[in-house]
């Protein structure tokens, strides 16, 4: 039988979503959807040693958009970023005891938002490495200059 309405779990996450909010200077930030389509999600992650230590979200959208956002933060917190990249839309829906069929695609974007945040984190990490390398060279030169003085 086609699922009628939302599961109890979806309603729980809709009514009391976990990890709502934003993080100032996050290690990773992801945004998917747009308000024209009716769903927009923003994910913020903090990462230490490649493990997600904190996560926050804000979502504009329907009941399942809010519930899936909340659920994905619950799933990904404490996970290694490479593991978290493997969380799929289906995983999120399964953890919520299913979503109505028409909601599976349009408002089940939370996993995508998480992936975007992780990609952002990895990009920043790479950039940091590159700039630290650069800084290192500058530092050497600086030290050299200092030495000359």
């Amino acid at each position, binding site marked *: 039988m086609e699922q009628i309405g939302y599961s109890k779990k979806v309603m729980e996450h809709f009514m009391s979503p976990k990890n709502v909010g934003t993080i100032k200077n996050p290690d990773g930030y992801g945004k998917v959807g747009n308000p024209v389509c009716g769903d927009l999600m923003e994910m913020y992650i903090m990462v230490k040693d490649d493990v997600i230590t904190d996560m926050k979200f*804000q979502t504009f959208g*329907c009941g399942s958009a809010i519930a899936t956002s909340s659920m994905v933060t619950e799933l990904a917190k404490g996970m290694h970023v490479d593991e978290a990249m493997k969380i799929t839309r289906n995983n999120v829906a399964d953890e919520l005891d299913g979503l109505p069929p028409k909601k599976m695609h*349009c408002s089940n974007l939370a996993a995508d938002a998480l992936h975007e945040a992780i990609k952002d984190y990895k990009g920043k990490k790479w950039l940091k490495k590159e700039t630290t390398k650069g800084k290192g060279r500058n530092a050497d030169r600086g030290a050299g200059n200092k030495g000359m003085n």
Partner: protein
Amino acid sequence: MENIYLDHISSRPIDPGVLEFAKRFLEHDYGNPSSLHSLGLEAKRALEEARAKVAELINAENEHGIIFTGSATEANNLAIKGAALRNIGKGKDVAASAIEHMSVLNPMKELQKNGFTFNLIPVDSNGIVDLEKLDEVITKNTTVVSIMYANNEIGTVEPVEEISKIVHEKGSYLHVDATAAAGFIQIDVQADGIDLLTLSSNDLYGPQGAGALYIKHGTKLQPLLLGGGQERGFRSGTENIFAIAGMGEAARIARLKMAKEGNRLKKMRDRIIQEILIIEGSHLTGHPTQRLPYHASFRFDHIEGESILLNMDMYNMQVSTGSACSSKTLEPSQVLLAIGLTHEQAHGSMVLTIGRSNKMEEIFAIIKAVKETVERLRRLSPLSKKEVM
């Protein structure tokens, strides 16, 4: 918390008096009105009594103009396809306002696929039909023009009398879907100049499963359903006597209650609108004054309608929305787009439709629930943050 039902546009509870009146047709008066024996004649009597009661509600010339159908959707289909197909000799143009119900627009679109010309008449930002455009669009080839009495999503009441004059100048039929208006607004098909008018039983607090089409004497119509020739040949099929008798009684009660109940609802409606518009980023949809007495519709910035509906349900209050997320097609309401809203704006709609069970004392709780709902969803929304920043 006691339940507060605010979705009368979607379904109305059956009036206890109506149920009491009609239940005998479910229990023991099960005759077929086409039969000549006593049980059949009893059913036939009930059928004709219901016809007279419905005729009286809309001031039809007599009861013969009323044809019972299975729903308002069927009545709309019968009116539009019936008139277009039967009058091909005059032409193959049909027209409807951009805010009609799907049961008007979809038959029109089907006609279009089959070689008819379908013109959509725009409305202004309040939902009032553009009369100049209407005049422009109708040609001598136009057979039927469909304009609703009042809109179910934004509550706007159309200037039917003026529309009728324009439509009749070109010799077209005017079909009016009065599903949302009948029983709440004084309808006079003769004074208004209406050729075809759709009614719904449930919207009058009658049982589901019956609708009616008023057909002005002389209007040429081709039936959709062929069979035993019931309902003067316009709608074959054994009549649903329980629903029809109920609809008749509901029409009678609605007519008697209309003035007093209308005033009561209007007061409540105005209070609701006044209080909700205090909320920042809230907007009324539809006409501010020319609107159904039971109808209060809004949109809110930065939040989405399905979430509003779910959140209000947690307060035991049932509302409706034109948001795409709650529609079968995942498209936002055509009505909200027709009044000029963007997709983004249309997502945040909420419709409150009050009825006989609602009391003035409930208003405080309703306003409080709406305010808290809007605040909570805005806290979750990344869009509201940007405005603040």
